[in-house]
């Protein structure tokens, strides 16, 4: 045993880097397909730059939701209500009454509604001992119902210029929405990998009984995870409201599926205890790049959904295969290092 092996990077690290490289490879392929199918567009550098921003902006709100979702899944849960929370937060923050408090009032309302719904989810799951799937499924239905009730099934236009300008402005040449996504991803990465909150998340999802007997308050942490997811939904609600300059009860439809799929493609274990923020981000980017690819080729969105489904299956199959061969490789190396 030498100091060198003791200081070696954790094995998980290598595995994650490889997976993310794989996702980068998929992105490169998708871009190549774009170049081949629409070479005339890609010959214009200004269009290419703009298109990258289009893809990133498209990924921004779902990316924020996916960060929250990744935490919940690593922590051993699932949040099916994210789309509904966004709709409720979006509708609540664009009522005439809320709009009268200005941009700050609208943002505050969206965040508080998101956290509050997360709190209800968390209490039901952690203290009411409901299965996460059931509790958040119920919330999915109920929150959209409440959103429809509040909005009277009408589209609520945002008359607030500050809110509306979030999606249309750039900071340092980069769209504000992309900055928000970047900030949430960085914060999420730090939270997961460098804080006690992240360590607890992995422990609670990996082995709740072990976490409990090590003195970790599993229930409180579970509650916090759903509140975190709710907070992310509140942020996403503002972003989507700004993009559409309106909110309605049907907004963010099926976001839960996209967010879960992106997290899984990014290497998050559905049974909990393992996952990465960077991988989840790549998962989101793969999806929005596919959407973009179909848009620039003027293809129907039905085909796009089929391709998405195929990509999810392919990514997971590939991961299983790679995971197995990789663990064998690591084991070999381990045995060489520690004879």
């Amino acid at each position, binding site marked *: *045993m030498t100091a060198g*092996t*003791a200081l*070696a*990077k*954790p*094995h*998980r690290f290598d595995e994650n880097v490889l997976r993310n490289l794989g996702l980068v490879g998929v992105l490169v392929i998708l871009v190549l397909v774009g170049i081949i199918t629409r070479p005339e567009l890609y010959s214009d550098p200004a269009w290419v730059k703009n298109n990258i921003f289009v893809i990133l902006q498209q990924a921004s709100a779902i990316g924020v939701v996916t960060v929250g979702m990744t935490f919940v899944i690593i922590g051993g849960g699932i949040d099916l209500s994210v789309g509904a929370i966004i709709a409720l937060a979006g509708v609540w923050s664009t009522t005439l009454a809320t709009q009268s408090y200005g941009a700050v009032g609208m943002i505050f309302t969206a965040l508080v509604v998101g956290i509050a719904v997360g709190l209800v989810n968390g209490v039901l799951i952690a203290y009411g001992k409901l299965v996460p799937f059931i509790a958040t499924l119920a919330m999915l239905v109920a929150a959209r119902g409440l959103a429809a009730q509040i909005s009277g099934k009408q589209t609520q236009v945002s008359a607030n210029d500050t809110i509306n300008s979030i999606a249309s402005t750039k900071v340092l040449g980069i769209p504000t929405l992309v900055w928000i996504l970047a900030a949430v991803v960085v914060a999420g990465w730090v939270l997961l990998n*460098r*804080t*006690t*909150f*992240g*360590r607890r998340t*992995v*422990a609670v999802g*990996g*082995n709740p*009984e*072990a*976490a*409990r*007997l*090590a*003195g*970790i*308050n599993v229930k409180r942490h579970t509650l916090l995870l759903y509140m975190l997811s709710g907070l992310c939904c509140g942020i996403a609600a503002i972003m989507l409201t700004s993009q559409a300059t309106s909110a309605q009860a049907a907004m963010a439809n099926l976001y839960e599926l996209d967010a879960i799929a992106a997290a899984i493609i990014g290497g998050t274990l559905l049974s909990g*205890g*393992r996952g990465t923020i960077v991988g989840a981000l790549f998962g989101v980017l793969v999806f929005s790049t596919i959407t973009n690819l179909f848009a620039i080729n003027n293809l129907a969105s039905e085909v796009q959904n089929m391709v998405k489904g195929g990509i999810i299956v392919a990514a997971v199959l590939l991961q299983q295969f790679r995971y197995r061969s990789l663990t*064998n*490789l690591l*084991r*070999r*190396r*381990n*045995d*060489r*290092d*520690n004879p």
Partner: protein
Amino acid sequence: MSTVLELTDVVKTFPGVRALDGVHLEVRAGEVHCLLGQNGAGKSTLIKVLAGVHRADSGTLLWQGEPFAPASPQAAMRAGIATIYQELDLVDDLSVAENVFLGHEPSRAGFTRRRTAAAATRTIMASLGHPEIPPGRLIKDLPAAGKQIVSMARALSHDARLIVMDEPSAVLAHDEVGNLFRIIRELTGNGIAVVYISHRLAEIREIGDRVTVLKDGRTTAAGLPADTPTRELVGKMTGRPFEYDFPPRAGADPDTAPLLVVDGLSRAGEFAGVSLTVRPGEIVGIAGLVGSGRSELLETIYGGRRADTGTVTLDGRRITSVGTAVARGMGMAPEERKSQALLLDEPVFKNMTLASFTGFATVGFTGARDERAAARRTAEELDLRPRDVERPVRTLSGGNQQKVVVGRWLLGHTRLLLLDEPTRGVDVGARAELYRVIHDLAAGGVGVLLVSSEVPEVLGLSDRVLVMREGRVIREAPAGELDEDAVLDLVMAGSLMEGEAA
């Protein structure tokens, strides 16, 4: 007696590991052939080769004189080799009969013939001496011993000629082991061969005919008589002679104030009116059968279960939850390491700091560098092998996994350590090291409260012993005043299993 199974020079490699490296094994009809070896000696791999889970790379397997290479567990079963795994592979929500005939249900035109299966199950159960287990009962409603009987019935339903049993006694209480042995004797009386794996030498003496010893994937002794002296067997297993060694200890100063005071603790259906104390530096042992309420008691003291009545105080302060217990310096190594204590995919150091990582953190940010350094020191102290703290805990042997769990509490400011079956599934060498660690802890002023089914272990390690039966403490005495037979008599009188088995 004729040879039914003969393995010569069997080799099985996994990428980077020679799990089996020249195994010889010869099993005769009607004998109990014991397989002995430390954790990692290759016993599990060997079983899986026999059961058709793995295929040997080279070497010869002869089954009833014919070359044999089962391609699947079903093929091995059809050939007449049944395996009863340590973790019983029964389906909890199916009935006894459905489990017995799982995978080969009697059927006609795709419809299962439930009555035929039930009748056949009843016959098999009767032949095993357990006619009282109804075929329709769900597995989850059976006690551990009953589940094992069902596993055995499944083996018999295949008309097995060889039954491999992987540590069958590990899940059983003492009196159930007697029943297991009776069944094994009946099986061998009918010419069925049994390969019996156990860490417990006393059992091997009692039930075994011959012993084969494995070390590092090789057979170091084949077909020794079961009454071979312990010293010689342990020598073959470890490469060095060994015997249980409990060095004399000074013991705690009887005048110091108690660290832990448990007063009149009760939980309905589990234990009642338990009072005990542990002084700093004192090792208190609880002897009792599985089901005597000892594990539940330990978890309640730790704050993991709410007591109906009674109090737990550490240094005069009430313990009401695991959170307060850990904060005030209590630690626990639970009975089921894998399911209750470890994050198997996480590295050693994160497992070691699971209860103390907040202490290494600054305003919520983890101090992984300090954690690694501390874990490395602890690994050194515990002689963890391999010493690599980045390695996922899953890859360690049982004994080393247990060291990681104990190491977790060495890292904190632990003043009272609760140990539930600290050496279950731990090989002889690692056992001695764990004993040393426990002694060192006590010498350093830590109070230890330990639970074990192995009476010699409780007597050898502890200063004071409490004997539990059916949820009550029935005897308390200094360890020196008790001997193994006396404790066993106390523990056994009146069994919790009464009414379950004949």
